[in-house]
């Protein structure tokens, strides 16, 4: 084995009510690509935050190149050659690339020198990037490059990457992997966090698998099947959702020539979107984040109005109707952002049930609320979708992400919609809950509902959708049957590599 770079010994970190990391030990070698694998809530984030100096361990020690290592803050970690690319970018849209990078530096050099350095690093590692472009105009993949270059300028010995591919098309993933391999060959170790098993199998040398805060296994990904890794990660055999053969009915949702201006300076305008969804059909809409997914949902939910005829429900034009009227007609939606959009964080589950259920569940009479019926509706969602909570009076923000997601999806599914549109239905949800949500969508379609599932998880779309289309810069590709679609084709529908190129070296 290669020389050890970082050694973790019995790291433990407890939060009130949960042990996030329990006695975690493993080593990362110089120039090794090490995968950290686990479900949401397995403790991956807490662990890397300890390495990066954001969180202090309750007990346990770390050694960096044989010397004790206990970073008090990220600055200390960076000084020791540890850099991190976060899943959520911390960039200012209104500033340009060089300004954003300068903001994160202790002593930024003059802008001209910095721009030259950025160009140099970006060329060396095949990450072309113009230092003077405004970040707000960049694609998600390009923004990630800004973050990576920001790290590379520090000449790191260990690069931590948190779910880097969730915002990339398959082609962009290939480019990223070339860069990472080049870094590895130069001796930089990479700690790669993901739950996407195929990626880990192509890229990583070693994998450490976490479950419920403990190390449950170590393996060499190239020699282990994805299924074996998944079962180590989940700790049980996985249930694949069943797709029954479904009879398709008439067109329930008809979107034709739909255009909408960008809601904000850095939003995406929808351009001439066409889509017809039949009863009993599930259409999957893929695409890299920020290509119009949120805007499409807003246009369908009625939060943004369009021309009357651009959106039709069972033949009736509804483009000028607001959310309440659309719900009454049977078009229900579930937005991506659970806290603050799909649900009000500080309100109880009962009140959140009322949030979209008022019309169809008849929870109000002449404007007066029927709290008894509302509580029953909330209890029904909790029971049927196995939402783990003390009761319907719990505040939404007290629920875990997965449980709240089950509540939000359940709230719409139980209202027996004609058409259901969901955005990222299983984002940040553990595997068991994700399977349950997908099964619920399939069951709903089997009952004759037209379902539109917007998601960035391609595996999910391939699993449940009958047809697939991709959003790219506000345009929707022509939907194609999922059966027989290759990853290559999907990638091209998503916009290919968005003009990005592979490392030349």
């Amino acid at each position, binding site marked *: 084995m290669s020389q050890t770079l970082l050694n973790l010994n019995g790291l433990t970190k407890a939060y*009130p009510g949960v042990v996030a990391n329990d006695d975690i030990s493993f080593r990362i070698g110089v120039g090794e690509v090490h995968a950290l694998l686990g479900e949401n809530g397995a403790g991956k984030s807490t662990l890397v935050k300890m390495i990066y100096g954001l969180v*202090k361990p309750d007990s346990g020690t770390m050694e960096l190149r044989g010397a004790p290592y*206990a970073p*008090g803050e990220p600055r200390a970690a960076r000084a020791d050659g540890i850099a991190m690319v976060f899943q959520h970018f911390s960039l200012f849209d209104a500033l340009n690339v060089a300004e954003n990078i300068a903001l994160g530096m202790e002593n930024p050099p003059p802008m001209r020198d910095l721009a030259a350095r950025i160009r140099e690093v970006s060329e060396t590692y095949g990450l072309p990037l113009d230092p003077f472009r405004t970040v707000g105009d960049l694609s998600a993949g390009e923004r990630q490059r800004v973050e990576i270059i920001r790290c590379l300028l520090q000449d790191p010995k260990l690069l931590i990457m948190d779910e880097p591919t969730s915002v990339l098309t398959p082609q962009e993933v290939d480019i990223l992997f070339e860069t990472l391999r080049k870094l590895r060959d130069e001796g930089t170790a990479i700690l790669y966090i993901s739950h996407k098993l195929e990626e880990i199998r192509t890229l990583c040398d070693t994998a450490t698998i976490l479950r419920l805060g403990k190390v449950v296994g170590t393996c060499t990904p190239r020699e282990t099947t994805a299924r074996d890794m998944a079962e180590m990660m989940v700790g049980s055999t996985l249930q694949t959702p069943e797709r029954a053969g479904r009879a398709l009915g008439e067109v329930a949702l008809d979107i034709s020539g739909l255009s909408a201006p960008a809601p904000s300076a850095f939003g995406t305008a929808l351009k001439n979107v066409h889509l017809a969804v039949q009863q009993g059909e599930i259409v999957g809409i893929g695409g890299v984040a920020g290509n119009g997914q949120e805007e499409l949902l807003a246009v369908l*939910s*009625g*939060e943004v109005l369009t021309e009357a005829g651009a959106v039709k429900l069972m033949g009736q034009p509804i483009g000028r109707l*607001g*959310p*309440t009227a659309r*719900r009454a007609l049977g078009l229900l*939606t579930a*937005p991506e*952002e659970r806290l*603050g*959009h*799909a*649900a*009000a*964080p*500080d*309100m109880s589950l009962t*009140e959140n049930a*009322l*949030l*979209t259920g*008022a019309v169809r569940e008849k929870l*109000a009479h002449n*404007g*007066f*609320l029927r*709290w008894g019926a509302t509580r029953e509706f909330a209890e029904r969602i909790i029971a049927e979708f196995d939402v783990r909570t003390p009761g319907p009076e*719990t*505040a939404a*923000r*007290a629920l875990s992400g997965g449980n709240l997601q089950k509540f939000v999806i359940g709230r719409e599914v139980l209202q027996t919609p004609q058409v259901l549109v969901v955005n990222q239905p299983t984002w940040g949800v553990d595997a068991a809950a994700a399977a349950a949500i997908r099964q619920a969508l399939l069951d709903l379609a089997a009952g004759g509902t037209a379902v539109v599932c917007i998601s960035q998880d391609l595996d999910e779309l391939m699993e449940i959708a009958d047809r697939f289309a991709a959003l790219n810069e506000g345009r929707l590709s022509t939907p194609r049957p999922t059966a027989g679609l290759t990853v290559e084709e999907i990638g091209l529908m998503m916009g290919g590599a968005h003009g990005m190129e592979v490392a030349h070296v």
Partner: protein
Amino acid sequence: MIRLEKRPQPSQAWSMATPLVAVLATMLFGGLLFGLLGTNPFLAIETIFWEPLFGEFAFYYRPQLLVKGAPLVLIAIGLSLGFRAGIWNIGAEGQYIIGSLTGAGVGLAFYPLEAWYIFPLMVIAGAFGGWAWATIPAILKVRFGTNEILVSLMLVYVAEQFLASMSLGLLKNPEGFGFPGSRNLQQYASAHNAEIVTGTGMHWGVVAALIAVIFAYVLLNRHMLGFQIRLTGAAPRAARFSGVRPARLILMCLGISGALAGLAGLFEVAGPAGQVSIDFNVGYGFTAIIVAFLGRLHPVGILLAGALMALTYIGGEIAQGQLGLPAAAIQVFQGMLLFFLLALDLLTNYRVAWRKPEVA
């Protein structure tokens, strides 16, 4: 080291307890302040909180409590609806003035006719005046996206100039020997907001305040509009997703709070004040903001807070008169109350943890 930890759920107990703790803290630090000013702090606190209710002259002060408390509660109830939805009407003082002018104007227009319908018409006109004045910032916000805080506040100063102009011009008493100010409505039976039971201070404004409390309670807890108000305040994006129309809510909230402030103005001008005069307004519209927050934007809380505020007003006046405390000290005392309330508010959502500093 003191650390704040976010509670998973807002604490019910602290939500109820913070106003009481805030009052106690105000008594403590206010007492300290009075002590430093050379007054016996216990006597000062007793004068402010005890004298108006149970002192020797309580028969005089108790009705005053209702007279002072009613407009505060009436205005604060209206403001709390908007505040709950994140719509900040800071100009209740202006709506109060305009309500008194339109209400009194209608009454004076009928002078000297005596008829039963004059006072009800004045009530409607008062509410309408306040509503109209509050609708100006509402429409500007909906149409042009202006900031309702600034517009409603600036309209207070417009209203004050308007009041001065009316007392010196259009509404001036023609038999007033040239003095500014309108005819005294207390001497015009059909327009007089008289005490319902003599000697109690119970006038129609008190009744209206109590009705407003019940109305707001039912609205917020049992009605869809109340739910939409709370939802908009808690999560604006979720509210739009739920189907709330923001423009309609802004018009409703500003309109209702304006109408209630206008009503308060009318009941004041036709009752305790008696006439339109240059210095008619005494800041009820601003104090009501404190009352609304002191009452945690909850109707029953506002009722209690209005009573408490009226108490410190009257008690403060007694303390000024009997103990010679400066008026500014009383205002500081009232300011402390709001300060402690807002500061302690933190405990509803956070818990304080005492912890030794961690060794890096």
